[in-house]
Structures are given as structure tokens and as C-alpha cells.
């Protein structure tokens, strides 16, 4: 029965609570090391022939046990109860602790080699002591600066003011060798024993001046005489399939240390020549140094037989995979899922589509009450295989039943009563956290409501792509299920997608229409779009509209509605709004524009204009969409955007929208114009080059003649490209899909169209015309020294006509350069951001409006100096006129 009692783990409320008030780091003293240790390691053997741990070896059972069934010889506990006990290695000769060698060096430089006193006169000592005492109280940072000054001052002394001994310069050779520089430049090695003697002589009072706390850390403790040996729990051996034992890297290292230590001891005891002793001593120093850190400068790392460097203590802690970043700050978690994402325009922006397979694996604990008893029974009956079911049942006494291995679920279901907890499958309406890496801002993890769907991918609404920066070219995302009511409440109130429509970055909507929605908005609302009854009913149904249908704009011969009427029906009836559209060209006055270039909404009636990127697009401030969010609130805005976007995409479906090369058709005269443009420009460039070759070109200020020419040519060539862009815009089919998308802001730009139909323009590498390749020329197709447009990467053709092989090559090279550039930039900016976040992470806006750091010190006396929340104002500004107008006051 006793074993049964032992197995039940300690209940959480039985664990005593203590508050950490302060943490102090100090050096482990030899005395403490010995008192912590339960045994001395005396032999480098780990196991005997029979495979039993050697007594006095590194696997001695007194250090603790890890194998099941064994009992610890120190505490008598089985492996799950034994915490492990430290041992020790008594070193035959002291060695320097590498990680402290810099501080040892500092002390050797600032104290007397004979009497161990600090190299300052008594007056100076008194003066500094008094100043330091004052600063210590509150000015920790200033005290550090003063200590630095004291150190500098003491270092300058060459004669001890106390005993008059001449001081030699102490040279430190990384990582652990010290020399004294004698008069004639002779270097004399300071061995760890001598160093320890010198450190022992330094009085406590002098150490305080040098920033040491001698009560916590005497400097001679930085020279090890005894080495603590961690228990096997820290360095467990692994049993291979072959039955062989494989020891941890640390054990290997400790074996080396013990072996060399043994050799050194016998060498000293047998009176071996000092050169042999010194050699072994140095080897011991090396092994102990690499035991702490195997990546020391100027030291070859210790390698495994396979050539892999050993992972010693420092390597366990350091870096991304290390204990801090890998195991403490970042852990793998349960109740999470990851798969590919794909779009679903029929979801709400608040929702996420979860595959059934995922929903059956992820669970939510549900306490059975008398009201949901029937539901709970059904879930248990369905079991782990049928969705919606349950995977586990937890009895009120804490027993867990895995339904995968439970035979009679019916019986269990009948046994269910209030107080049971069942871990049920994810069902529609559950709140989950959805995340895409890199998590650069708070909108990278948002709360979504589950929608269980067939298929194997997570589905999300297209309007939430911008905050996650997601697309569907293979992106994967993570999903986490909150496991308790607090977490769910927080997720629902603080993290739900609809509460992140407005980004705190610039105070505009980061969620919103993109691409096809914008095309759809434009095509639906432009002047010549009419919809018949069937279509308008279909579109209103898609939007979830259940009001009356407005009177059609055209009654006869057929009832026809305009697209603007459809939008009007979906707009809130008290909305008044005027804004410019993306297709705006020449109109200045919204009230005198007959080309729909201004969006005008009067009492929820869309009077003029079109919907496009400027009005419903994501990341557009002061747009129709932005105003809807601000005036009607997150919840309304979410419903509005859900319905209107659904309607728009359905309209685009009905109408059809596909782009072919016919949307890039250009009349013949446009090509004549382009030819002439290029020919003229080429002539001009050649003239420049001619002038340069004749030496008639004059250098511009600050530039060489070559740079002047390069400059002139670049300007001329970019001028042609711009002219070509104008030609393209003039002749391009205005009803073509390409132009519609570019103009409304759905996708692409006039630049892209120019590249397709007119001229690609100059290709660059690092912002310059091509110059690399052969000597004096880019490829063998040109004369050396050819500076003309074609020879240096100018592409006069367009994508539609096609590039010449040479142009194609330049284009490919330029494209690769751009790719490399973005890769480098993201890496650099990512690291910059990491450092910024680490520096800023605990700065917060306090309730009194001040900005403070973790210790409560003031960073800013008022947030942003004006106290305005960007996301709750007109993106950082106060628009008083608007506030007064809406409050019904006139200014």
C-alpha cells in the first residue's frame, strides 16, 4: 500500500508558495563544494566487467540513480524521487576557472604581487571608499563607473605604495595563461598555484573597492581546487538497441578530468620531473576549461570519436537551441495543430476552418453538469473515432480513461454524472488561437471561432491574410486550443479577429478587401453595371440580407438594379461619407464629378463613385471601411465586411473575370511611337558616349567624368521608360482586365502593364547598370568598352513581344540580384527587430498615462508625448471638427 501512496503525485495546493525577493550570484567556494558533495570521485572507471557501477566512479550509486528499479545509496529513494547528489573531484593541483579568468587578470593587475594590497595609497583608498559608499546606496550604475576608474588608477602604479615592491605587468593569454613581464622583456609563467596564493593575500576591504563582494565571492575561489561533479540525472547514459551503453558528453569529459587528475597525482607523488608534472597540469587545465565551455577562443574543441565536438556545460545553455531560448522561453506544446492553409471566402473573418481529422485530435475539457449530461453521454458514446466525440473521460476522483482503449463506452456513458470531466472534440464555435510565423506583431496570433470542415487544410477568410501576411502558396499555420475558461474568455474578448481590424501600428484597418474583392467592388458599382432580379436576389442572399429590396433603377422593359443600389441596401442607413476613389484622375470637386471618381454616400445611399482599394481595401486609412469600423464598432464592421465581401465575390463569379493577352492589346501606332521614342533616346545616349570618348564631357560637381556619363545615361534611359509608360497608358485597352486591376488597386500597377506592353527598361545590379562579366564588357557579344544601352542591360522590348536572349540574360541576372537582396534584408531586419523587442518588451503605458519600464522608472511622462492612442483616434491625430460635428455641436 505504501508504494501506492508514493505513486500519487503531490497535489498542487500542497506545494508551499514562496516569493523570490532577490537573486544573488556568487562563486561556489571549495568549502561549499565539499559540503554539497556526498562522495569523492576517485577512479576514472565507470563500470566494472560485470557492468555494475564502480564504487568511487562517475556512475557511483551514491550520486543518485536513473535506471528504474534501482535505489539511491544516499537517500534511499527510487529514481523518480531521488533528485541526485553532487560529488566532487579533489584536484591534485589547482586550475583556473576559464569563465573567471578575465576577473583574475583584473585583480592581478590592480593588486601588489608581494603584499596583495590594492595599488593605491591609503589616502586614495579612504577617498574612494567614502565616495563608493555614498553611490552604493542608490547609484548602482555610477558606482560601477567609479569602480572602473579605481581599477584604471590602480593599474597605472608600478610600485606598491604599501610595501614598496616593484610591480610587473601581467600579460593574459586567452583563455587561461598568465605571464609576468620582467624588465628585459622575459616572460615568466604564473601558474595557477602562484595566482591562487596572490589572490588569497588580497584583503577583503581592498576587494570591495574593486567591485567584489568578498563575503559572497573570494577571488581565490576562481581558481579551482575541487570540482563539483553533477549527478547522473544531469548526464544520463542512453541504452542503445544493441544493448550497449552510450554515455553523455559531460560524463566523457569528467572521465577525462578524473583520469588526468589521477595521473598528475601519481606523477607528483612519485617525484616525476617538473616538466612532466607541468605538462599533465596543463592538460588538466585544458580538460577542465573545455568541460565548462568547449567553444573557447584559441583552444581546440574536444571532439568525439566521430569528430563531432562535445557539448559541454556552456553549450547546453547557449544559443537558440540552448536551455534558455530552447527549453525555457520556448517549449513544444500540447493542444496545438499545424497544417497548410487555404482560402475560403464563405467563412466569416472571425472563423477558421478546421479539418475533421484535426478536430478529432484536439480536445477541450468539458465539466459535465446536469444540463449537458445528455450531450456529454452522446459525445462519450461517439468516442474518439466519430466526430463530434470525446477522447478522454476524467472521473471526479482524478482517474483518466482513454476512450481509445476502452471497451464498453455505453456503460461509461451511463455512469457519467455531474462532476465528471470529458475531453471532447473541437466543435463549431470553439475559440482557438491561430498563428503564422514569423510573429512580428500582435495580429500574428488572433482568436478564431472553429468551423469544422472536410478536407485536410486550415481554411481562413481572405480578408485576414494581410495581418498574418499569409498567402496560399504552401504556407502553414499553427492552431492552439485554450484549455480553461479564463483563457477562452481572454481569447474571445481580447484576441478575436474582429478586435484587430484596426492595427495599433498606424491606426488604420489592416484587415480588409484585396484582389478579387476589389475588382468585384469596382465592376459591381461602376455606372454601366445592371443586375436583373434573379441576380440581385442571389447576391443579397449571399450577403445574408433580410430587408426589403429597393425599387429597381430601371422598371421597363425589364426590372434592373444598379450595383450601387445593391451596395446601398447593405450600407448602414445613417452613414454619410465622401472620399476619393483609386480610379480618380482629374476630378477636383466631389459634387461636380460625373465620372464616378468620388465615392459619395448619403444616408446610406451610394450616390456616386465606385468601390475600390481606396474605399474597401485593407491598409487604407480614412476609407469607407475604416469609417464603418470606427463608427459602428468591431462587431458590426465584421458582419458588414463578411456580407459585403461575400456578395462581391459572388458577383465576380456571376460576371466572370479572367485575364488573357487580349487585355494587353495595343494598336500598331503605339508600337511606332515606342520605336521612335527608343530610337531618339538611343541616339541621345550615343551622343553622350561620343562626347565622353572625345573628352568633351565635363564632370559634374562631386563626380568623375565616368560617373557623370553614367548619371546622364541613366537619367535619359529612365526618361524613355517613363515616356513608354505614358504611351502604354494612353493606348492600353481601358476595359481590359489588366488595366482594371491596376487602376482599382486590385493587383499590379501601371508599371507592370508598361513592362508587359511597352518596355521593360533598365535592369540593374545593386542599383547600377550592368558592368560585371568580361573585362570591359558584360558579355562576349559586345566590344570592350561599349557603354551603350543594350550592352549594359537595357531591355527595350516588353514581355508580350518577348525579350532577346541577351535581354533575357540581363533580366534573369537582375531578378536574382533582387532576390538575394530581399533575402539578406529580411535576415538583417529580423535580427534588428529581435533586439528591439528584447530591449522594449517590458515597457508599458501605466494607468496614469506615463510610459514606464519594469522597475517603474519613467520613460515618457506622457505616452507619445500627446497621450493619444493611434488606434483609437484618427490614426494618431485628433480631428476636433469631426468630433464636434458628430456630437451635434458647431465650433
Amino acid at each position, binding site marked *: 500500500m505504501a508504494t501506492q501512496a508514493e505513486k500519487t503525485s503531490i497535489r498542487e495546493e500542497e506545494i508551499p508558495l514562496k516569493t523570490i525577493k532577490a537573486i544573488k550570484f556568487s562563486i561556489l567556494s571549495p568549502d561549499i563544494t565539499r559540503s554539497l558533495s556526498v562522495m569523492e570521485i576517485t577512479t576514472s572507471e565507470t563500470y566494472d566487467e560485470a557492468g555494475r557501477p564502480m564504487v568511487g566512479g562517475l556512475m557511483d550509486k551514491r550520486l543518485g540513480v536513473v535506471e528504474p528499479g534501482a535505489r539511491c545509496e544516499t537517500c534511499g529513494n527510487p529514481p523518480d524521487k531521488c533528485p541526485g547528489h553532487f560529488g566532487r573531484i579533489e584536484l591534485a593541483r589547482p586550475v583556473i576557472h576559464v569563465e573567471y579568468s578575465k576577473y583574475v587578470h583584473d585583480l592581478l593587475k590592480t593588486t601588489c604581487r608581494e603584499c596583495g594590497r590594492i595599488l593605491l595609497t591609503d589616502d586614495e583608498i579612504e577617498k574612494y571608499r567614502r565616495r563608493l559608499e555614498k*553611490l552604493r546606496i*542608490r*547609484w548602482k550604475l*555610477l558606482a560601477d*563607473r567609479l569602480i572602473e576608474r579605481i581599477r584604471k588608477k590602480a593599474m597605472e602604479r608600478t610600485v606598491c605604495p604599501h610595501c614598496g615592491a616593484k610591480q610587473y605587468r601581467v600579460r593574459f593569454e586567452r583563455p587561461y595563461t598568465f605571464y609576468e613581464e620582467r624588465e628585459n622583456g622575459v616572460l615568466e609563467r604564473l601558474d595557477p598555484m602562484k595566482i591562487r596564493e596572490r589572490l588569497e593575500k588580497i584583503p577583503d576591504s581592498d576587494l570591495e573597492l574593486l567591485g567584489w563582494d568578498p563575503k559572497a565571492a573570494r577571488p581565490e575561489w576562481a581558481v579551482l581546487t575541487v570540482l563539483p561533479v553533477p549527478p547522473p540525472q544531469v548526464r544520463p547514459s542512453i541504452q542503445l538497441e544493441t544493448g550497449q551503453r552510450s554515455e553523455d558528453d559531460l560524463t566523457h569529459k569528467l572521465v577525462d578530468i578524473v583520469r588526468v587528475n589521477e595521473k598528475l597525482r601519481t606523477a607528483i607523488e612519485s617525484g616525476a620531473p617538473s616538466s612532466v608534472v607541468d605538462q599533465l597540469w596543463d592538460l588538466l587545465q585544458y580538460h577542465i576549461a573545455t568541460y565548462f565551455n568547449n567553444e573557447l577562443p584559441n583552444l581546440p574543441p574536444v571532439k568525439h570519436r566521430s569528430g563531432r565536438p562535445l557539448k559541454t556545460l556552456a553549450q547546453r545553455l547557449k544559443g537558440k537551441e540552448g536551455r534558455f531560448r530552447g527549453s525555457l522561453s520556448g517549449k513544444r506544446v500540447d493542444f496545438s495543430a499545424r497544417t497548410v492553409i487555404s482560402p475560403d471566402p464563405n467563412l466569416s473573418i472571425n472563423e477558421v476552418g478546421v479539418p475533421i481529422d484535426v478536430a478529432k485530435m484536439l480536445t477541450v475539457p468539458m465539466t459535465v453538469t446536469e444540463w449537458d449530461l445528455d450531450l456529454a453521454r452522446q459525445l462519450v458514446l461517439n468516442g474518439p473515432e466519430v466526430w463530434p466525440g470525446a477522447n478522454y473521460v476524467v472521473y471526479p476522483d482524478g482517474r483518466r480513461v482513454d476512450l481509445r482503449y476502452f471497451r464498453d463506452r455505453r456503460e461509461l456513458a451511463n455512469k457519467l454524472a455531474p462532476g465528471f470531466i470529458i475531453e471532447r472534440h473541437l466543435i463549431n464555435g470553439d475559440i482557438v488561437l491561430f498563428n503564422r510565423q514569423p510573429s512580428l506583431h500582435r495580429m500574428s496570433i488572433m482568436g478564431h471561432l472553429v468551423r469544422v470542415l472536410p478536407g485536410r487544410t486550415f481554411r481562413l477568410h481572405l480578408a485576414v491574410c494581410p495581418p498574418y501576411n499569409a498567402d496560399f502558396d504552401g504556407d502553414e499555420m499553427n492552431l492552439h486550443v485554450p484549455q480553461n475558461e479564463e483563457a477562452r474568455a481572454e481569447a474571445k474578448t481580447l484576441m478575436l479577429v474582429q478586435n484587430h481590424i484596426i492595427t495599433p501600428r498606424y491606426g488604420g484597418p489592416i484587415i480588409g478587401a484585396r484582389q478579387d474583392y476589389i475588382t468585384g467592388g469596382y465592376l459591381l458599382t461602376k455606372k454601366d453595371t445592371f443586375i436583373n432580379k434573379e441576380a440581385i436576389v442571389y447576391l443579397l442572399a449571399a450577403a445574408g440580407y433580410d430587408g426589403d429590396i429597393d425599387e429597381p433603377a430601371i422598371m421597363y422593359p425589364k426590372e434592373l438594379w444598379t450595383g450601387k443600389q445593391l451596395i446601398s441596401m447593405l450600407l448602414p442607413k445613417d452613414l454619410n461619407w465622401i472620399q476619393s476613389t483609386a480610379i480618380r484622375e482629374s476630378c477636383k470637386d466631389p459634387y461636380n464629378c460625373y465620372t464616378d471618381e468620388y465615392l459619395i454616400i448619403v444616408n446610406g445611399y451610394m450616390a456616386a463613385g465606385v468601390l475600390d482599394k481606396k474605399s474597401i481595401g485593407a491598409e487604407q486609412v480614412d476609407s469607407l471601411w475604416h469609417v464603418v469600423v470606427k463608427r459602428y464598432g468591431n462587431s458590426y464592421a465584421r458582419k458588414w465586411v463578411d456580407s459585403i465581401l461575400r456578395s462581391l465575390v459572388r458577383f465576380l463569379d456571376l460576371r466572370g473575370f479572367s485575364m488573357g493577352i487580349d487585355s494587353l492589346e495595343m494598336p500598331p501606332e503605339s508600337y511606332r511611337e515606342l520605336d521612335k521614342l527608343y530610337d531618339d533616346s538611343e541616339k541621345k545616349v550615343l551622343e553622350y558616349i561620343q562626347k565622353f570618348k572625345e573628352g568633351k564631357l565635363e564632370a559634374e560637381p562631386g563626380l568623375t567624368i565616368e560617373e557623370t556619363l553614367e548619371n546622364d545615361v541613366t537619367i535619359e534611359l529612365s526618361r524613355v521608360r517613363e515616356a513608354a509608360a505614358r504611351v502604354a497608358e494612353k493606348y492600353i485597352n481601358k476595359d481590359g482586365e489588366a488595366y482594371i486591376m491596376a487602376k482599382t488597386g486590385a493587383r499590379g500597377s501601371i508599371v507592370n502593364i508598361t513592362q508587359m506592353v511597352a518596355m521593360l527598361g533598365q535592369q540593374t545590379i545593386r542599383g547600377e547598370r550592368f558592368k560585371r562579366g568580361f573585362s570591359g564588357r558584360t558579355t562576349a557579344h559586345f566590344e570592350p568598352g561599349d557603354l551603350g544601352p543594350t550592352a549594359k542591360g537595357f531591355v527595350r522590348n516588353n514581355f508580350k513581344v518577348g525579350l532577346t536572349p541577351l535581354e533575357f540574360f540581363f533580366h534573369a541576372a537582375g531578378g536574382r540580384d533582387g532576390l538575394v537582396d530581399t533575402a539578406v534584408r529580411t535576415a538583417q531586419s529580423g535580427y534588428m527587430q529581435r533586439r528591439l523587442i528584447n530591449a522594449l518588451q517590458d515597457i508599458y503605458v*501605466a494607468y*496614469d498615462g*506615463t510610459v*514606464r519600464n519594469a*522597475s*517603474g*522608472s*519613467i*520613460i*515618457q*511622462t*506622457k505616452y*507619445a*508625448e*500627446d497621450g*493619444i492612442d493611434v488606434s483609437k483616434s484618427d490614426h*494618431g491625430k485628433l480631428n476636433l471638427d469631426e468630433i464636434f460635428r458628430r456630437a451635434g455641436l458647431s465650433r
Partner: protein
Amino acid sequence: MSAGGRRRKTEERFKRVLEHEYMPKAEVIPKEEVKEILKQLNAKMFQLPWIRSSDPLARAIGARPGNVIRIIRKSDTAGEFITYRFVVPG
């Protein structure tokens, strides 16, 4: 020249930094007023941002360690902004 005289002369020279247009207006706040400001900000003296007494601005207005100075500077967001610095030795 005595050490005091030399110091006075350097202090004079530091006054000239105030003439630059990018230099904010600054003044040492009398002790009684400091108390009020600290109460208003709900902060202890050392929780204010620090400025070294060796800072050219601090020297120009003759601030000593332990003083609090008021700085009035132009701000992109607030037009004009008043902030405080606690003068520390060094």
C-alpha cells in the same frame, strides 16, 4: 588662474550651447516645486529619466546632482512637450 576661475570660464562657454536652435529650453526646478511634480507624476525622484551633471545642457544651466530640471522641447506629436530630468553625478 585658480581652478575655480577656470571652471567658471568653462561654464560660461557651455552657456553658448543654449543658443543653438536644436537645444531645448531647460531650467532647474526649485525644491518645493519638484515635490509637486513628483506627486503629479506618481514617481520617486530617481524614477525620472536621468541626465549627467557633466551633460553640456546641465552644465549650461548650472544644474547640480540632485536637482531636477525641466525641459521644454518641440515635439512632432504634441507640438511642445514638457519633460523632466533628474541630475545625477558624473
